[in-house]
């Protein structure tokens, strides 16, 4: 199921969750023409943010994507505290909650490389294009090669 970007992003913002948008949706914000199906965010690993994430997402019945059904998974405070990166399915689609990303680090480390986007009636932080390219490159996944090429082309086009 494709994420309902227009519902998920406002929900996170209105719930007061501190996050930075990365991944394919961030690519689209920069002008990418590639379709993406999930929302990837780097979240702040503070106690207050854990509480907000837990409270806000539990009604969406988050579950580990690809895991067999029936596991006793609950996205609560201890789970968030003891875990780091969560690839989830939710009622509003797939959501990757990342505490740290290769090539970019934590929320606080990424913060200087973001800008504010206004969409769907809310404002949120999105990673800048050079950093998004850096993150994709650092991930080292063969499937990202085309995407990196497109993002670099976007950078060239936007600086023409």
């Amino acid at each position, binding site marked *: 199921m494709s994420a309902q970007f227009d519902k998920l992003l406002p929900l996170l913002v209105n719930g007061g969750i501190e996050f930075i948008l990365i991944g394919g949706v961030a690519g689209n914000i920069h002008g990418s023409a590639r379709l993406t199906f999930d929302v990837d965010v780097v979240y702040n690993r503070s106690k207050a943010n854990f509480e907000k994430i837990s409270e806000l997402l539990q009604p969406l019945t988050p579950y580990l994507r690809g895991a067999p059904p029936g596991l006793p998974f609950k996205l609560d405070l201890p789970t968030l505290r003891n875990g780091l990166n969560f690839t989830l399915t939710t009622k509003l689609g797939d959501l990757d909650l990342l505490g740290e990303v290769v090539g970019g680090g934590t929320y606080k480390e990424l913060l200087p490389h973001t800008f504010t986007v206004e969409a769907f009636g809310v404002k949120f932080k999105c990673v800048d294009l050079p950093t998004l*390219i850096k993150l994709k490159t650092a991930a080292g996944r063969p499937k990202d090669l085309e995407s990196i*090429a*497109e993002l670099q*082309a976007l*950078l060239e086009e936007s600086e023409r």
Partner: protein
Amino acid sequence: MKTRIYRDPVIEAYKRDVDRTLLRENLKLTPAQRLEKLVSFSSFAAELRRAGQRARLAKKR
């Protein structure tokens, strides 16, 4: 000032196939408009998937 990009020969090879006309059109839009376009395209793709499922089911019957 232009951002310096490391020129990886593999990426450069992929870059030759990037359709820059699509990118130039997207760059004319605001970030919010680009997201609206993504939402609209996602709905379209989901509808196509559902239509495909229906067609496969009908074929089985």
